[in-house]
């Protein structure tokens, strides 16, 4: 399976998950987006040696995943794929920072290991929160939320159009790659010249498609402005969701016992 094909499957999976009907999916997207951002902000505001103090935050992605019916594999497979850079940055901590921090029986744990683990934990928490949020919100709803939060219209429209055509162009790419592979009989792969031709063709086709879409828009009276329906209404359930989670994040951040625990 080529990269393009697995990309398409992954995209389809996310879209499927967000079309499920649960109470969580019905919560106003603004509440979910703001709550998630608040959570992420709070998590990364801890100092680099916080470890146990971070654990309570896991309840947010867990809560969302359970209520929103998001399978664990969805989060973990993506976590694994994007972890290399963060691990790469963090792995130097134990190597460089050797000041002993904690004594567990006869084993001395250096500060470097604690900060490395803290980084990993932060990574898992923030990434899970964002992924699950998107899976239970739906992309169109996220864009509507952004539009209502005063993100410039040009950007919201661009996000919607990109999302609409991403799977189409990616499938064209997948087909072209498959056709190429069938003709190359296992030889070394695309050369730069071959790449320029294949991807260049895809680029030209994309231009043509954009022109046809533009014609279609003109035929239905397009005058330069895209009008997106925006019927978001904040209800009491949404306020409760948002306020509740923000209060929780603040509490976890400030409560001393949690912090005291991390420094043993």
């Amino acid at each position, binding site marked *: 399976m080529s990269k393009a094909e697995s990309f398409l499957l992954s995209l389809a999976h996310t879209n499927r998950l967000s079309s499920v009907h649960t109470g969580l999916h019905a919560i106003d997207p603004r509440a979910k987006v703001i709550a998630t951002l608040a959570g992420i902000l709070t998590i990364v505001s801890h100092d680099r040696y916080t470890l146990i103090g971070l654990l309570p935050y896991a309840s947010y992605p867990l809560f969302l995943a359970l209520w929103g019916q998001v399978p664990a594999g969805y989060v973990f497979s993506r976590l694994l794929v994007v972890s290399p850079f963060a691990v790469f940055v963090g792995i130097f901590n134990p190597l460089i920072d050797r000041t002993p921090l904690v004594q567990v029986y006869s084993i001395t744990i250096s500060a470097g290991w604690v900060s490395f683990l803290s980084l990993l934990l932060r990574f898992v928490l923030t990434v899970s929160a964002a992924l699950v949020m998107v899976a239970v919100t739906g992309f169109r709803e996220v864009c509507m939320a952004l539009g209502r939060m005063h993100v410039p219209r040009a950007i919201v429209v661009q996000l919607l159009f990109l999302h609409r055509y991403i799977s189409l162009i990616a499938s064209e790419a997948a087909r072209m790659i498959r056709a190429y592979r069938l003709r190359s009989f296992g030889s070394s792969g695309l050369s730069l010249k071959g790449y320029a031709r294949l991807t260049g063709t895809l680029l030209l086709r994309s231009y043509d498609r954009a022109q046809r879409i533009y014609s279609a828009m003109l035929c239905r009276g397009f*005058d330069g402005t895209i009008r*997106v329906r925006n019927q978001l209404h904040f209800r009491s359930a949404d306020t409760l969701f948002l306020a509740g989670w923000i209060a929780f994040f603040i509490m976890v951040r400030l409560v001393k016992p949690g912090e005291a625990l991390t420094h043993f």
Partner: protein
Amino acid sequence: MSHHLLQATELGYTYPDGPTALSGISFRITHGESVAIVGSNGAGKSTLLQHLNGCLVPQKGTLRVGDVIVAESTLQTVRRTVGMVFQDPDDQLFMPNVYEDVAFGPANLGLPAEDIELRVMQALETTGVAHLRTRAPYHLSGGEKRAVAIATVLAVWPDILVLDEPSSALDPRARRRLLELLKTFDHTKVVATHDLDFALELCERTIILSRGNVHADGPTKELLAHSEILRAAELEPPVSAQGCPMCGWRKSND
């Protein structure tokens, strides 16, 4: 009623990079007619269709759509009169979901929200896809996309419907559904198609294009049975006009 009229007089068009696509096309299509435009690839079908909805402006001759002559200044009116269904529905379904795509046209007309709702639901009911209104376009099958594309055009209440290869890439059942749907429309219909059986069932009149000219223009049943005329235009008779594959028996005369 003149606003259903489509009249071309010596229509000519040449593309900037060379080939003369249309040279002297003339025809007159009136209220409620159902006309098939057939011809081999390169005969000028797409170029002609692009004139019908104002995507191209005639270089020679005139084209009258409803009450106006097609020119730069009248393009908006032309586009409201003619509803064009593109060959690739993915080009026409560009909004986040079906409802918004169908509402796109009426919204651009400046209609109030209740009228938009009315038109959208009406168009969706007519094409039988009301249950898909919250779906995203990439979640639809080929036949569903085609139906939604037609709905997006219907919502603008055009007088003339132009369809470019409507049955292409449709499985037999979707194709049958489309045929039955189109038969219920009172609009003037212009259908460019390779599917001559489709033309035979839907359109009582056929215009055959060949190398930018009108090769023949007449009742579908007669024209599509005439293998000479068809062969001269690089076509062949539709399956339903050919003889029985076993014994060669044919119903109509040559």
